[in-house]
Structures are given as structure tokens and as C-alpha cells.
């Protein structure tokens, strides 16, 4: 079973993307036609990349065209693979991966700071290339709402390739998969590509989290992926909200719990008001469930990208409510969110005192750390360490001579 197939986008406005068509043939080998706006620099490179990819995908006979608007190799590989998979639906194919970024990934931790996480549409190459420069604590490559349903297969391959080819700098590497159970298909290739956090949208049942966690762990074992992969369920419905605690504590892989305002509000039949009373219970529910389960409560996004003052106000309220971070849908929102979640001077002073007490105890060989009569345990010390680090990054404390 084979058929004519296409992938990617056409036209000059499809910047950094390319369009690939495949017409399977009975015989005659590969007939490749390439047009590219960068052919004067990469004509030969493009031809050999496409021919090599077809070879790796074991395609022997086809007419193939590539119309390129400056797609970098990992993007072009994803588009070729997408077109091939669409041309032979149901046939198993090996993954056709790009070269891995030698910079590697910055290790993450379950309780890493997640003040700002920047959503990027998973099928837009031009947004992926420089996603890491905007100072967000995490990037979320989105396979769900930001991608038209017919393009989700393409987005998965593009995001998978981006995770291989790009280190994303200091940003934690998150992907929002499709709603489960469809989203289960997304998980293995992403785990092999060293995703660090998987966001599970429209979570309504702790079983969903357990299924995702089990798949993560078996994939890690099979592929020999050493680094831990964490989960962040998103509550977006009344049913999910009512199960918040069970969902939050369903798996030890869960690092954070968040919620989605738009879908939730629609489902309860509510309307947005200036003081946000309609979501008071939901926000309380998320914060309390997360805290009870020992995971980070993270707030939803703020939709009006023009209104930075509104965002600042909204973020302050979220911080005071107990949330530790907020989603961003545009790079300009990132500095505002980061700034609000910078620790307050009193917090910084307290954290410094805790670290000092800890250091003193260590020097003196004591196993018990205390400030006055207050006992300090390890999680508190860790948290204080992170506050101190954040304060340094924000310039509130002098550097220790170390680098970022």
C-alpha cells in the first residue's frame, strides 16, 4: 500500500521550512528534484541529505521533490521522514535521526526551578531554532493544541529531531504530548531523544499518569536512557480537578502539577471576571493537591501577549497564591514572569542564613542543622540553595566567581 504524500509547508512565508512530496513508483530508483532559496550555498548538501535519508528509510523507488525555504538539516530530515511515512502508511520505518548536539543537555532535577516555561508550536521550525535564547527556565515544544490535528505526526518527528539536534542551552526540555491515550504513541521517541519533562494534557485519571510513567520507564530501560524523565499533568476539566490529589501523587516521576484555564472554564460553563473568582476553587485545588503530593504547583498561561502589566499583576497573584511558576506563550512574557518569581529579599536573607547554618554544621561535623531552635532538614537546605542560586542569577547577591 503506497500513495502520493506531502509534508512541510510551501511558499516564501514558510521560512526555515521545506515542502517534500513523494510519489512512490514501481521501479526506476529515486528521481529527486530540489529547488532551494539557499541552493548557491547548499545545493549539493541538500541532495545528499535527502538521498541519504531515503536510503536509511529503505525507499528505493520514488519521485521526490523538495521545495526549500532555508530549512536546516534536522528540519529537512523530519519533513522527508514524514512524507515517507505518509506515503507508506502502516509500514514500519527506522527513525531517521539528525546528528546530536555535542553541547549535550543540561541535567535537570525533580525540584528544579520552573518559573517560566515558554510554549512553542511544535510544527514551526523557525520558532524552534532560537527557542533557548529568551531566558525561560524551560521550553515546551507543543504537540497538542498549537498543532493542527492533521499535522501532529509531522510535529512529533520535527520535535523529536529538534531534541536530538538542539541542546536548548540552559532551558529544561519539555514536550506537551497529545491527550492520552493517543499521546502514549508520542512518548517513546521523545524519551529516546532525551526529553526531560512530559506534559500530559487534559489529565482526568491517575491511571493515565501511571500508564505514561510505565511507558517512560520501559522506554528508558530499552534505550539505555540514564537521565530521569519527569511528568507534569495538566488539569483542564472538572473531572480532572476533582481528582487533583490522586493525579498529583499517581507516580514518583511527577514533578509538577499545572492547569489550563481556557478549557476548564469552558467545561464548567464559567466566564472570566476581573477578580478571577470563577477559578478560585480550581487554583486552590491545584496548589493544595500539588503541595500535599510534594510536587510543584505551576500556574496556567496569560493569554493577552500585548498586556505586560496585566501579566505582571496576574503573575504576582499566582505567586502569592502559592504557585511556583507560570506558562508563557510569547518570549516577551518571559522576563516579566521570571522577575516576579525572583525570590523576595526576606526569602533570600532566610535562605542565606540556612545555607550558612548548614555549612557551619558540616564544618563542625554535626549531622543536625538548626537555626536557633528550628531544625533544618535536607529538602529545606536544597530549597535554600536554589533560592540563593536564583538570587545570584538575578543579581541580588554577588557571584561566587562561578559561571551561570
Amino acid at each position, binding site marked *: 500500500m503506497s500513495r502520493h504524500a506531502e509534508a512541510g509547508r510551501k511558499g516564501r512565508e514558510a*521560512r*526555515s521550512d521545506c515542502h517534500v512530496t513523494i510519489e512512490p513508483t514501481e521501479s526506476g530508483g529515486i528521481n529527486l528534484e530540489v529547488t532551494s*532559496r*539557499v541552493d*548557491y*550555498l*547548499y*545545493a*549539493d*548538501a541538500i541532495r545528499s541529505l535527502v538521498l541519504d535519508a531515503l536510503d536509511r528509510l529503505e525507499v528505493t523507488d520514488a519521485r521526490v521533490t523538495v521545495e526549500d*525555504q*532555508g*530549512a*536546516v*538539516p534536522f528540519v529537512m530530515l523530519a519533513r522527508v521522514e514524514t512524507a515517507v511515512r505518509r506515503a507508506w502508511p502502516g509500514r514500519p520505518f527506522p527513525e531517521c535521526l539528525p*546528528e546530536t*548536539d*555535542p553541547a549535550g543537555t543540561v541535567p535537570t532535577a525533580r525540584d528544579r526551578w520552573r518559573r517560566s516555561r515558554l510554549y512553542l508550536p511544535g510544527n514551526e521550525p523557525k520558532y524552534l*531554532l*532560537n527557542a533557548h*535564547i*529568551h531566558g525561560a527556565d524551560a521550553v515546551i515544544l507543543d504537540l497538542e493544541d498549537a498543532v493542527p490535528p492533521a499535522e501532529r505526526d509531522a510535529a512529533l518527528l520535527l520535535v523529536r529531531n529538534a531534541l536530538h*539536534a*538542539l541542546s536548548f542551552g540552559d532551558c529544561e526540555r519539555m514536550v506537551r504530548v497529545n491527550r492520552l491515550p493517543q499521546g502514549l504513541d508520542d512518548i517513546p521517541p521523545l524519551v529516546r531523544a532525551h526529553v526531560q519533562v512530559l506534559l500530559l494534557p487534559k489529565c482526568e485519571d491517575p491511571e493515565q499518569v501511571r500508564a505514561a510513567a510505565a511507558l517512560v520507564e520501559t522506554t528508558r530501560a530499552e534505550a539505555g536512557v540514564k537521565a530521569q524523565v519527569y511528568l507534569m499533568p495538566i488539569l483542564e476539566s472538572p473531572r480532572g480537578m476533582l481528582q487533583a490529589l490522586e493525579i498529583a501523587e499517581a507516580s514518583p516521576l511527577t514533578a509538577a502539577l499545572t492547569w489550563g484555564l481556557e478549557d476548564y472554564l469552558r467545561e464548567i460553563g464559567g466566564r472570566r471576571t476581573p477578580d478571577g473568582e470563577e477559578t478560585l476553587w480550581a487554583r486552590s485545588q491545584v496548589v493544595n493537591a500539588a503541595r500535599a503530593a510534594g510536587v510543584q504547583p505551576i500556574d496556567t498561561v496569560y493569554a493577552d501577549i500585548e498586556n505586560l502589566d496585566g501579566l505582571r499583576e496576574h503573575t504576582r497573584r499566582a505567586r502569592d497564591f502559592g504557585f511556583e511558576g507560570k506558562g508563557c506563550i*510569547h*518570549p*516577551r512574557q518571559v522576563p516579566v514572569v521570571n522577575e516576579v518569581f525572583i525570590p523576595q529579599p526576606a526569602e533570600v536573607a532566610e535562605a542565606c542564613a540556612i545555607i550558612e547554618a548548614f555549612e557551619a554544621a558540616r564544618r563542625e561535623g554535626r549531622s543536625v542543622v538548626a537555626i536557633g531552635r528550628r531544625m533544618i532538614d535536607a529538602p529545606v537546605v536544597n530549597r535554600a540553595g536554589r533560592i540563593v542560586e536564583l538570587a545570584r542569577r538575578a*543579581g541580588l547577591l554577588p557571584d561566587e566567581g562561578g559561571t*551561570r
Partner: protein
Amino acid sequence: MKSAEDARRFAFVQNAAGRFVPTEVNGRTETPYQGVHAHRPTGRKAAPPIPNLADYPARDSKLFPDLHTALEHCGLRDGMALSTHHHFRDGDLLGNQLLDTCAEMGVRDLRWFPSASFPCHAPVIRHLESGVVHHIEGSLNGPLGDFCSRGRMRGLGVLRSHGGRAQAIQDGEIHIDIAVIAAPTADPFGNANGVHGPTACGNLGYALPDAMYADKVIVVTDNLVPFPALPIQIPGHYADCVVVQEQIGDPAKILSGTTELTRSPDRLYIARLVAEFIRDTGIMKDGFSFQGGAGGISLAFTIFLGEMMKQAGVTASWIHGGTNKYLVRMLEEGLCRALVDGQAFDLDAVGSISRNRNHVSTSPLISYNYHAKGNFLGNLDVAVLGATEVDLDWNANVVTHSDGRLLHGIGGWQNCMLAGCTVLAVPSFRDRTPVIVDRVTSLCAPGELVDVVVTERGIAINPRREDLRKAVRASRLPVRELADIKSDVERLCGRPAPHPVLDNVVAVVKWVDGTVLDSVRQIPG
């Protein structure tokens, strides 16, 4: 079509930058580039013929019914050099009107010497093809750039900076037979300004050297007012003829587009890095000065810098630039003492010139001229510029795309290289085309003058500027080596293959002192 013989006729020498350049351009003997400050010509400046009051006796005697009669009066004939100016940018109508009139009058082989050409001048291709215009000396972009790049123009394109154009006129390197000056407001004596009228554009500084040095000067206006037209930006005693045309520019295109703040998050990020660099190096201190720009990163950096100045309580002594509402606001808020205006980019700037005595117009003849007793750049602390390419020797290109096609004019870009600190603010690649390359396609600025390259992948500081490297050592800026940024980009984009250009030279790039810095070669197709 230029023949192979034409191409072979040039004798080439290797100049001080290692580039092969012709020793003769459009019939003139040329000096190859000698080094940044090495060329020291002697002799005297050019001078127009001595006029006589007896030839201009009566009130209104300079008024002519149309361009045709005025050109006739000025003795238009085959082979003359005619100049126009780009105060109306892509809204200019006069350039085409002038050359259309010349075509009707049956003259041939003219040399058109615009201060810059724009896509609106595409109809000039017709006159190049028919032989009315022999060649263009002035910036070539859009359709005209393509025409020249493909080797279809007789004669060579000559690309000069704004300051270099004024220098060439002043030194007699190019002789203008007839200068045609579009004036938003003029009186019958020929006094002209750009402040009033339906095509108000603020400043007429580009036309000043032409007015002073051309043999004949025609002032064309669509807003004739009684003597004296005030303020007097181009004095009428330079004018031979005054012509009233119904429309000389399209106001909608004169002041549009360029003051829009970029929405590209990547460009905004680069602009913010530039501002932080200027702050953290200590260049941003009381009394400092900078070049403000229009459009893209240079506009955005101005806004970020303004915010940082406010926060730190720092004021600038003066800002040079294409001016716009943001710079006007800085002047009005007291963030700078003076705005020195080469070109106004919006109505706020035009209005400010006419009402604020600390907002003054200048001409490249005065602010940018290298053959002068100093120029404004000697007083400028920092300039932020774009580029199409920069190489590992810090050489930079602004006139051609990486495929060799003529893309931009040089503008004030080369002139600003002589500021205290020159920053190129560029993305590290554009749609897989790397900006940091092994060797720039066209050399427009020698590497010793490029101090800093700011990209979204980090800030690189020229090793010649140990002072700047030291100044930011304790900062949080992402300072990296240029070669490291380049290899990052090549890892992502792939290493580009050397691309084909033909041997045939189609244009030359001049340095600010009139020497030939590089040759631009024909591209295939």
C-alpha cells in the same frame, strides 16, 4: 550587455585589504584602498563656475514652466551627470520624472547620480536598456541591484557611503552637471526646505553638496511659497531654476514603515543585548553620544537603551541619526541635550525639527565627510549597525547578499565605522544562510574598525579592543569568540559550499576616502 572585451579591459591591482580592484572606473583613474587612514590626497577641492547676478536680475526670473524648459536652460546634452536625492525614499517621484523628461528630450548616455535609489526607481531600467542612461553611480538595490548584478548595466556601479558621496563631489571625483533637488517647500528664488508642505521630509542635507558643487541646480517643488521660504535649508543663491510640479513624492511612502518596532523576538533579544553591552561597558555614562537608527534592531536598541538611561539617571550629550518619535521623546524628556538629524523618519521628527532648537538638521557633507577638518564621528561614542556578513577577520559586508547580489546601499554605515565603538547587531544566520563567514563576499568595512558583533548566540568582541573585553569581564553578558559562534551556526546549518560568481566586475565599493575597497562581481543568471 557588457561584452567580454569590456571586462578584460580593466587592469586590476591588489589593494591594501588584499582585494583585487580595477584601476580605472567609468573612465576615471582610481586609487586602490591604501589602509584606513593611509590615503592623503593633495590639491584643491572642486569648484562650480562663477555665476553673475546680471543673469538672474528679476524677481521670479528663476521660475520655469516645467522640467523640460529648465533642463534646456541648463544646457542638458548627451553624457551629462544628473543628480537627485532620496529624501523621499521609496516615495520619490522626481527621479523617474526627470529621466522620463530626458528621454523625451532625446538625450543619451546620461550618468544618474542619486544619493540612493529605491525599488520605486525600477522604471529606470527602461532608460538603461534604451541608452538614455549609461549607468548609475549610487546605491543599487531591488530591481536595479539585480540588473547591475547580472552584468546588464553599461559602465560600473559605484557604491559610496553618504559621506563618501559628499567627499567625491567636493573633491571633484565626480562632476555633477545638473543637480535636481526635490524640495517639499521652495520660493521663486530657490530657497528650499523639507519641513513644510505635503511631502515634508524634515531635512534636505543629502542635496547640500550637490547644490554647492554642481554646475547647474534646478529646485523642483510642489509647494511654492512667497520669498523667503523659511527655514532656509538649501539657500536659493545656489539655484539656477525653480520648477513647480504637481507632485514630487508620495507622502504615504516617505515616512512609513521605518519606525515600526520589530516584533521578532529574536531581533528584540539582540537589541536588548546591544543596550546591555553599551550599559555594562560603561559607554553609557553622562554626556555620552550614540547613533540612533530606524527600523529593525537599531530602532529597538534605542528604546531599550533609553529605558536603561532613565533607570540609571544618565543623559546623553547628543544623538545622531535617522530620527523618529522615540528619539524625539528622549530629547523632550531631557535624556539627551541635542538631536542631530541626518534624516527624519516620521512626522514627529519633522515637527520636532521645526519647533525644537535642539533638534538640528545636518548634511553628510558636514557630519560624515572624511576629507574635512574632522567630522561628527570623532565625537560619537557608539554606533549600532547591521550587516549582511562579517568574517573571522572582522571584515564586514553591507552591499551584497551572500549570493553576491547587490542588496543595500552603504548609507552612513561606512562612515559610522569611525565612531568610538562600532557594534554590528546581526542574527547569526538568516534562513540557513550564515552571517559569520570565512571571507565576506564584498568588503565594505575593514575588520580593524568592527569592534563588536552582537548575535542571538552571544557577543563577540574584536581582540583589538582589549579595553572592551576587559570592561565586560565582570558582567553577565554572554561574551564568546566569533569563531565559536560561527561553528555553532555551521553545526546547525551545515558548512556552506563556496558559491559561484563570474569574473566580470559589475560595480566597485569605495572607502570613505574615495579609494576602491572592493569589486562586486557578476552573478550567474
